[in-house]
């Protein structure tokens, strides 16, 4: 595969053609924040937290869905980028009902951790406080739409790794919502295998195993990578 050379934060870097910017940036040891990205799943470019500045373009580019190009000049950290990332995290909090103190993922939540990283101790936007349901009809799992950030990791792992595509997204924009099959109660799904991968990759407390208490859940977001490596590379010990 052809090599390309680009500049990331004023450093010359080599990459393979076809790689996306996020991969190359992370290979350089730069801790670029992400939320919808997960190793082992296809990229979505939904959360926009991995945005970078590319010289010659006035628009910010989501690095997870931007392919590397010869002579690209990329900036991963600037006041503008930090401002936007913080704004994105605040908007995620303002969009639904996130109450960390009583959430199963308190202390292990990726959204909470991003808020800590960007110093989000208050919101500058009026929260929407939407009235959203909780579906506890499944025997083992619960989906609480109040805590969902629509990263669609669950949708992708269900489709790409488990191969059943029970989960999907209905609606548009702020009204979007994760659904089972054709928007049926989870209990009624005839396609769900109850494998629980959706729960393990959910970055917040939106999907969780029943009977768990706040602050005592640790999920396994490494699961898709391990399964994909096992299938494709026959590697089981990573």
């Amino acid at each position: 595969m052809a090599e390309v050379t680009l500049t990331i934060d004023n450093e010359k870097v080599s990459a393979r053609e076809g790689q996306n910017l996020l991969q190359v940036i992370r290979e350089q040891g730069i801790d670029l924040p992400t939320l919808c990205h997960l190793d082992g799943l296809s990229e979505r470019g939904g959360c926009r937290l991995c945005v970078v500045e590319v010289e010659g373009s006035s628009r910010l580019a989501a690095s997870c869905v931007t392919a590397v190009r010869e002579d690209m000049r990329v900036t991963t950290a600037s006041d503008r980028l930090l401002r936007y990332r913080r704004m994105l995290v605040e908007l995620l909090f303002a969009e639904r009902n996130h109450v960390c103190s009583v959430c199963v993922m308190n202390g292990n939540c990726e959204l909470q951790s991003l808020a800590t990283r960007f110093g989000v101790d208050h919101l500058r936007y009026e929260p929407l406080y939407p009235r959203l349901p909780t579906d506890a009809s499944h025997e083992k799992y619960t989906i609480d739409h109040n805590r969902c950030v629509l990263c669609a990791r669950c949708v992708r792992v269900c489709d790409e790794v488990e191969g059943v595509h029970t989960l999907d997204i209905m609606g548009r924009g702020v009204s979007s919502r994760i659904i089972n099959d054709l928007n049926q109660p989870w209990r009624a799904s005839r396609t769900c295998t109850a494998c629980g991968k959706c729960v393990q990759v959910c970055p917040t407390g939106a999907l969780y195993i029943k009977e768990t208490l706040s602050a005592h859940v640790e999920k396994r977001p490494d699961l898709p990578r391990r399964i994909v490596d096992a299938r494709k590379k026959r590697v089981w010990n990573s």
Partner: protein
Amino acid sequence: MEKKTVTIDPVTRIEGHGKITLQLDEKGHVTRARFHVTDFRGFEKLCEQRPFWEMPDITSRICGICPVSHMLASAKAGDAILGVHIPPTAHKLRRLIHWAQLVQSHALSFFHLSAPDLLLGMESDPQERNILGLVSRYPEVAKDGIRLRQVGQEIIRVLGGKSVHPSWAVPGGVRAPLEPGKLESLQALIPQAIDITERTLELYREKIEGFSGEIEHYGDFSSLYMGLVSPGGELEHYDGVLRVMDGGGKILEKGAPPENYRDIFSEGVESWSFLKFPYYKPLGPQEGLYRVGPLARLNVCDRAGTPRADRVLEEFRRWQKNGRPVSGSFHMHEARLIEILFCLEKISETLSDAHITGTHVRSHAGVNARAGVGVIEAPRGTLFHDYHVDDEGLVQEVNLVVASGHNNLAMNRTILQIARAFGNGSEITEGFLNRMEHGIRIYDPCLSCSTHVVGRHASRVELLGPSGGLLRSFEIL
């Protein structure tokens, strides 16, 4: 140097925001006194549609002083929805954490909130009449209070993972067992705590000789008393049956199943307070006034059930007049110390139980009942959590009857009694205002878990003329 974390919690004199109004007649005499609770929390509403599994965590956030009581009452309501018997070890562990909760909460009430009035004087300099004044004038007493509270908090921390808002009790049992390695360090806390409690009781008895006016007028009236007792009639805080006693000592309810509380009690509502006004149904809103909490519990039980507590309970009953139950709310201070002693003895006894470190601490089940009631004796009195859920366990309806609610009618009667005894109508002194506040403080009401910085105004007193117009308002430090 070893890394240390020093945490200073906000210091309060009452727990939450309240307001007192006094109504005067033409001659300046107090005709009506009302204690208003002006916080609106809305927990019963915001719990709707939440899975009942979350309820112990959500409802423990009602309060920062007694989160453990809410957590346990909620978990008990959850047990009833599951329809399970929790493992015996879980039952003992829940009792253990609850006794620790009573120790720390009562210590807070006695030493941090009330001792400044009791030791420095009801009408002493308000700048000094607080925990900091106590530290400078009575350092040993202050240290004892802080240490005693620490003992309770430490047991909660070891069991629940953290001392405030532990996420530990769950429908069906508890999240984690007690590690055997922790037993010895917990047991080691008890002897000193018992010493502190016994010498504080002695000190209190010396001091109380100068408080005959307060004893007479700080809520001394005949009323009903309600509390849990064990099936054998002993002092009980976690389980048992409801007992209701009248002002003459006659038992009106001998052993009512707590889940039937709606048959016995009704809740009144007034437009001027967000706190409800429960009363004993068979006697109606006036005659059905009852008190809960340490005084009521010591009145309704036959005996405590531990050697040291039984001894001091016997001495406590010196306040009985003509064989009637102890009727002065001021004696709640002493009752709290007696309960601390009882809890410490029970903690020690339970830590010695061979099965306390058992690892089977949780029963599992689905939704087997559509409703569940959890009842517990919280530090301030009987606490009910009553949930209705759908088939999936999502909460449809919540009713919480908290201790400060049970005592609402009694608190209002108490401040009226104090206002009449100590007010002369023409002049309102700061000392008089503090007496009013102490009348509330003896019930140790937990109006919410809001906090106050030392020196900021915490409560308001309003003076209303005969037509109801505001004459003057005062803020109490």
